[in-house]
């Protein structure tokens, strides 16, 4: 489902003396349908960078990132948009929404965007919000005013609303209490069971051990120090 081959990335800071910072080289990994791969490595090793490149949020300098047959590195913006709508989900660490939009709509949006019937989309949103323990009294309010933990759970509900065949999860269980953490892990297991390919970053070792089938240490793709000189 996801094939990454020889991907490299360099940040060039034009306004800071054109410093070129190579952050990744030779990144290669594959994730099959129904499999969950955990990215590991120290902070700064490039886990989030790699994940963002897979989502098309960062540009890869070279290599191939194939998701369901589309090469993200060379795809047109509209091909990536279509892929993100239908195939590739991403649960980031932060919720970003249009202010004023009610929580229920925020969660249902990915379904509405692919033309799902409104009643079905809202029912699915309700189900997820229930499971993630967001009180019903909050559903009609915008999540912008919610606590950090509530926002994160809304973000997860939104990320799981559509049954994406491929998913990227950046710290989905961070700062959740035990009950909600268990719910999120169950959601991930359900996604795997229906055949989704999942790439996750989990600092929480127990969570990683429960859902991940394999680990890939991203620090092996970090360019050696000498390369910086």
């Amino acid at each position: 489902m996801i094939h990454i081959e020889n991907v490299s990335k360099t940040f060039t800071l034009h306004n800071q003396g054109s410093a070129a910072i190579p952050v990744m080289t030779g990144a290669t990994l594959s994730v099959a349908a129904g499999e969950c791969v955990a990215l590991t490595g120290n902070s700064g090793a490039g886990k989030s960078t790699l994940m963002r490149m897979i989502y098309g949020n960062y540009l890869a300098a070279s290599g191939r990132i194939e998701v369901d047959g589309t090469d993200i590195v060379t795809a047109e913006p509209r091909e990536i948009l279509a892929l993100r709508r239908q195939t590739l989900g991403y649960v980031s660490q932060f919720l970003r929404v249009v202010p004023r939009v009610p929580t229920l709509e925020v969660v249902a949006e990915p379904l509405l965007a692919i033309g799902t019937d409104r009643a079905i989309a809202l029912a699915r949103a309700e189900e997820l919000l229930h499971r993630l323990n967001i009180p019903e009294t909050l559903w009609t309010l915008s999540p912008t005013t919610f606590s950090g933990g509530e926002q994160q759970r809304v973000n997860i509900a939104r990320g799981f609303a559509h049954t994406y065949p491929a998913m990227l999860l950046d710290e989905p269980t961070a700062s959740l209490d035990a009950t909600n953490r268990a719910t999120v892990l169950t959601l991930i297991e359900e996604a795997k069971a229906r055949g989704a390919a999942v790439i996750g970053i989990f600092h929480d070792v127990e969570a990683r051990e429960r859902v991940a089938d394999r680990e890939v240490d991203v620090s092996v793709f970090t360019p050696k120090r000498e390369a910086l000189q």
Partner: protein
Amino acid sequence: MTPLLSVRDLHKSYGSRIGCTGVNFDLYPGEVLGIVGESGSGKSTLLNALAGHLEADHGEVLFQTRHEGLRDMRLMSEAERRMLSRTDWAFVHQHARDGLRMSVSAGGNVGERLMAVGARNYGDIRAQAIDWLGRVEISEDRVDDRPSAFSGGMQQRLQIARNLVTGPRLVFMDEPTGGLDVSVQARLLDLLRSLVREMGLSAIIVTHDLAVVRLLADRLMVMKSGHVVESGLTDQVLDDPQHPYTQLLVSSILQV
């Protein structure tokens, strides 16, 4: 899928000064394209040249018309262009006053567009006008008020209703949220987003507000001194900018 609008090598100069130059892009149905850049970067010149408000010096602006396939806007007759700007195209001005008739009632402002495309039944026109006022959250009891009695945010929403009532396929917007209070901006953004999705609109939005494009635009073009210096997926351009100017622009945003 074929593009709704294809722009090829568009160039506009003001004497020896470049307005915009070498602009190429395709806009597909349902896509929202943001154009950002500082004042004087050529973004408004480009928008006006695309919409036919300014005569470009050379280049092509090809629009997928409903009945005659791809047509070069620049080669159309004035009458054809005017018809298009009343039906398939809409233009939302930064200042609502430029897009509204201030001496005509709110309902009249919306109804006028319908009459321009041939609607004649007064009852239908009024009903549609009220429906559209409702969609932009202006209550029915304001239908006979003049826009001069409206707040800035309401005027802007009325302008949007006036523009969208004829079901256009392509909307040009020039700083649609500029000059509005932040809370009013949020409401307008929410409204624009849902209208774009429900009507399957394509839109080109010129703004200097990067937060606005992040929420509204699928794709982004960054302009500087009349040139497009960078383009791509909106979040990619904002989160991983490649051009020195875009990096400067993105890093200059004040954090709230």
